[in-house]
């Protein structure tokens, strides 16, 4: 099937027609002939390269009650994504080839986005010995991102070995920066006025910043690629800015929720706001936005973390960390970065598609909107808005902090290798079982 997008604005530029045929962007130009193509009136819509998420929790294998690769893929497609990286902290942990190959295969079966498995850095995420990184890299899943996300690779020697070990595969170590001696497993609230007042265990900014400072020096020492997951503090932005100026190969991501929400929201002890790293004060949020705008922070990554209701129906300290992100990410970025003038749509494409694809080495995604490129693209209505209704989300979980909030912009269509997964804002083949 061919599709002719009429009067679309690529990255917000001048309107043009785009013909999608045989899985690629076959033609771009004005007044293209429709031929056998189905015509989509895209007047006023922005065409973006399909979004690429570096940080998704799909919970399969192990917690299919919270999310499956199929349901998470559906949420991703509706959010405008064409590729996602599935984090390794599943049960069993994705620390060997058979697991990552299973994840990739289930992603292919779902057929809604390209699911790129992330391999664990250490066996069982225990932070003691290296996982079978080389085997995972050489497997059919061809893993290129390794992370113990959920836990920090806190042993400096193990981190050094991991950075060295991935070099033959052009892979990257994605670090969850949290010094466990400064912010232990109980830490659940930004350490500051709010944690002191509410009596919640504090998670100080320096627990992140000190690990990132150490890791960029290790990356320089090893000449390897380091990626910093979910940056949450102004100090970390400064460290990364310094490291990049020094020529160290470091990249970083920020989550949509860290761009919008602050720790003041914890006043009611609602675990919907419990994330790791925690929500920070407004000064940090401003620094994150500025860092993303000037390119110090390379990418927006969702840290999509679905949880069943019974895992959140606890006291704040006992509830699970994390919130949904795939279906709301673009809207939050539109509100925090586009509506504020910090990024234009080309900037959004750069931070949510081009750079994440490059960091994750995801072939065929995050490509320029040019003739002959794979048709992994997303159509966005920048003038629309969406009311976030948890019951309307396709994730198996409902833990969104944005319920009832109206976010700007809306995904109208998503194409994966030339095939629409989303049309008119709805999944083409319905919600997967």
């Amino acid at each position, binding site marked *: 099937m061919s599709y002719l997008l009429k009067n679309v604005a690529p990255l917000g530029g001048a309107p043009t027609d785009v013909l999608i045929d045989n899985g690629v962007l076959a033609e771009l130009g004005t007044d293209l002939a429709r031929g056998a193509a189905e015509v989509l009136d895209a007047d006023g819509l922005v065409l973006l390269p399909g979004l690429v998420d570096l940080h998704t929790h799909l919970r399969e294998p192990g917690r299919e009650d919270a999310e499956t690769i199929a349901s998470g893929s559906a949420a991703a497609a509706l959010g405008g994504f064409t590729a996602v990286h599935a984090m390794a902290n599943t049960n069993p942990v994705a620390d060997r080839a058979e697991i990552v190959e299973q994840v990739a295969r289930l992603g292919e079966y779902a057929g809604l986005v390209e699911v790129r498995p992330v391999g664990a850095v250490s066996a069982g995420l225990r932070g003691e010995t290296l996982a079978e990184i080389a085997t995972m890299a050489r497997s059919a899943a061809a893993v290129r991102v390794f992370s113990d996300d959920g836990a920090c690779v806190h042993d400096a020697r193990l981190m050094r070995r991991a950075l060295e070990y991935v070099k033959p595969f052009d892979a990257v170590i994605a670090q969850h920066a949290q010094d466990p001696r400064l912010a232990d497993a109980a830490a659940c609230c930004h350490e500051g006025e709010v944690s002191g007042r509410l*009596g919640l265990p504090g998670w100080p900014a320096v627990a992140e910043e000190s690990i990132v400072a150490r890791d960029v020096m290790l990356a320089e020492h090893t000449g390897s690629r380091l990626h910093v997951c979910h940056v949450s503090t102004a100090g970390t932005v400064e460290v990364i800015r310094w490291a990049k100026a020094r020529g160290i190969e470091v990249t970083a991501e920020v989550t949509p929720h860290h761009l919008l929400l602050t720790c003041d929201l914890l006043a009611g*002890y609602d675990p919907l706001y419990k994330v790791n790293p925690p929500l920070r004060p407004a000064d940090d949020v401003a620094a994150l936005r500025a860092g993303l705008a000037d390119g110090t922070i390379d990418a927006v990554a969702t840290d999509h973390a679905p949880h069943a209701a019974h895992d959140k129906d606890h006291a*704040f300290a*006992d509830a699970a960390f994390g919130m949904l992100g795939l279906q709301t990410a673009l809207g939050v970025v539109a509100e925090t970065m586009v509506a504020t003038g910090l990024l234009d749509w080309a900037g959004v494409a750069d931070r949510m598609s081009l750079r994440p694809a490059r960091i994750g080495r995801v072939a065929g995604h995050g490509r320029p909107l040019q003739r002959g490129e794979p048709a992994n693209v997303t159509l966005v209505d920048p003038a629309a808005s969406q009311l976030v209704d948890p019951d309307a989300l396709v994730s198996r979980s409902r833990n969104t902090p944005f319920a009832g909030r109206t976010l700007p912009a809306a995904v109208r269509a998503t194409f994966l290798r030339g095939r629409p997964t989303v049309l008119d804002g709805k999944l083409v083949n319905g919600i997967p079982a």
Partner: protein
Amino acid sequence: MKHLLSAADLSRDEANAILDTAREMHAIQNREVKKLPPLRGRTVVNLFFEDSTRTRSSFEIAGKWLSADVINVSAKGSSVSKGESLRDTVLTVAAMGVDALVVRHNASGAVQRIAQWVGCHVVNAGDGTHEHPTQALLDAYSLRARLGELDDRHVVIVGDITHSRVARSNVLLLATLGARVTLVAPPTLMPSGVGSWPCETSWDLDATLSGKAFGDVDAVMMLRVQRERMSGGYFATEREYAIGYGLSPQRLDLLAEHAPILHPGPMNRGLEISSAAADGARSVVLDQVQAGVAVRMAVLYRLLSGADEPVLEEAK
């Protein structure tokens, strides 16, 4: 008032009304038959997710003296470890026709969450390191008994402020009642953001007790060193802590004669408090325990009967 979750829930008038009611309740403690009828037919459940002897017993006696049916439910160990959500645990208990839940939990904010889920009254009997409002009320009651009205009275609270729900509730309630509060602790045990609290802070106990730092002291409250929380290296040794922040016999001499000494108990004698301080004439530790029953009677009475009239004919 539907619930008592935080000392901050109380206006000055509400706090004084509870304390006035408590004074009337206190009177029955000297009677041979310590029983009043107002909560007959009402059911109060003490739902304790954390060990407690004195607070649970205090609430139990308070409820029984008001003729409520009091049930103690020990849910020790978090619901997480039992595989059940807190919400399910609480809804199960509340579904048994409970009029009030008195809840203690080891997690800050747990009682606030519970109050959102159930339809009955909820009293916070201590949530994690957050608050313990009835402790603050009984402390205020004890202070008022010794000092009269608390306006401009200077109360010093000493010890592990970071982990103390007693300190948080006291700072809020005493400020509401017009008192001045100074918190004294080593920097490692002073909470983040304490500068925004309605109180002064100091690392120097001697300067504070002597009045050189923040003026004359009218009362001092020593907090228990929670040894179970001290694995984080908050101070070097117990000896060093006692030297810096213990209420030693020598430091007693810095205190004015009229100044009562409070402690929420249980006490670590020789660590945060000397026996000379704990057992001396200025100690009101046992008065606090007695006041606890009266204050909790007042709280249960005011929540469950909805009464604004503080007078119980039987108590006169």
